[in-house]
């Protein structure tokens, strides 16, 4: 009886809500993750050629950086509303908007990573007969991983947080629950969905940090050596 009453009393924290709507919550969480992860992955696929273009061909770097920065000043609300006629009422609207936002951070960080590769290292690789592609994947990519991963982490956390705004087109994952909870003044639903959203973002960030450490074991050695020396 006591646990029933928290739904009726419209409490902020309500275990009964979590129990009775666990299916709905799980669906929203999955949709949320799906949208955020696919948009960062697509963003990476797009950001790489753009950053390479800006790096190899200096004339392109101004327009590329300028364009991706301007994209970021478009408010998310308007971004989704404007993409709606292009993609129709589907999750693609939200994914496309988030891809465009992620480009700002990703292109900048990939470019910064490429520029951080020491010239000596590049010359040594070329002297050893590395071709353009071997140089990129064998030398530049590993060396730029820290900058790249820092960008991916920011992009992922922002994407998870911004997915909620997708509720305006009905595809906002947990944002849908927040939005409908606002209309029906359902406090438990709003708080639970918000909390899951923050938890998702924080765990994604930590997970990516672990991935980054695993991918760049040398960075930790160097940090330790630096501290000792």
């Amino acid at each position, binding site marked *: 009886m006591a646990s029933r009453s928290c739904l009726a009393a419209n409490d902020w924290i309500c275990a009964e809500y979590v129990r009775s709507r666990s299916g709905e919550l799980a669906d929203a969480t999955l949709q949320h993750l799906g949208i955020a992860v696919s948009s960062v992955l697509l963003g990476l696929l797009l950001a790489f050629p753009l950053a390479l273009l800006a790096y190899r061909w200096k004339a392109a770097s101004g327009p590329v950086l300028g364009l991706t920065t301007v994209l*970021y000043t478009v408010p998310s609300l308007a971004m989704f509303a*404007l993409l709606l006629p292009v993609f129709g009422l589907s999750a693609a609207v939200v994914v496309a908007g988030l891809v465009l936002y992620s480009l700002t951070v990703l292109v900048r960080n990939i470019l910064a990573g490429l520029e951080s590769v020491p010239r000596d290292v590049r010359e040594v690789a070329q002297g050893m007969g590395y071709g353009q592609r071997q140089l990129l994947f064998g030398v530049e990519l590993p060396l730029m991983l820290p900058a790249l991963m820092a960008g991916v982490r920011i992009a992922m956390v922002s994407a998870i947080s911004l997915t909620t705004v997708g509720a305006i087109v009905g595809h906002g994952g947990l*944002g849908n629950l927040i939005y409908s909870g606002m209309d029906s003044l359902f406090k438990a639903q709003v708080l639970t969905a918000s909390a899951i959203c923050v938890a998702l973002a924080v765990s994604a960030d930590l997970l990516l940090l672990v991935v980054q450490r695993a991918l760049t074991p040398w960075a930790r050695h160097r940090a330790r050596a630096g501290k000792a020396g």
Partner: protein
Amino acid sequence: MGTFTAAWDWLTSGANWTGAGGAGQRLGEHLVLTVLSMGCAVLLALPLALWLGHVGRGGTLAINVSNVGRAVPTFAVLVLLALSPLGPYGELTTVIALVLFAIPPLLTNAYVGLREADRDVVEAARGMGMSGWQVLRRVELPLAFPLIMTGVRSATVQVVATATLAALAGGGGLGRIITAGFNTYDTAQVAAGAALVAALALVVEGVLVLLSKLTDPMRGRTRPGRGGGASTAGPSDGAGAGTDGEAADRPRKTADAV
């Protein structure tokens, strides 16, 4: 292209600007929201960041608060506040949400700026017998000024863009033009609203760049610095996010190494 001309027509017809709920009123609301929240955020964040940076404590907090801030959806905060006992007070909830949103980047940039002030210069100032307050006011603050202003700038631009979300939770501002256009399937109006927000963001950015040039305590003098002013101050080409991202990146990497 049709959308652009239609949006232009929307923006240039006077009827859309006047009266209750017109673009003029919404623009005013948006500006008031931005100024109020940035004012509060600066008053709260900068003194704390300067003190933390001066005594060299709380670095993990000052740096990671940005990451945590990014993880909290502003939309969720707006709705949570709207349902809270503060809900009936209308714009107050929007201002609180925006202040919470603006504090992290301000805190991180100001802290990093102060810590990156050339330690040799700071030591020299101490050696000359300056008190802690004098060191902060006359050495660290002038050296950290560009990065602090970069933080203020990027936070303000983000607040301008994010204040549109208030419309989703029933608040005012330019977001109302976007949601109204969205609800009536008026793409031209949505685009016009978006253009207004972006234009406001760019104008605000420009004003702040000018302001920081005029108020720079080291105006006309060269900043002694490791790696030169440009790299510490962050790229000057970007509005908003990029600058924030880059300024926040470096400390994160060092934080990871620790």
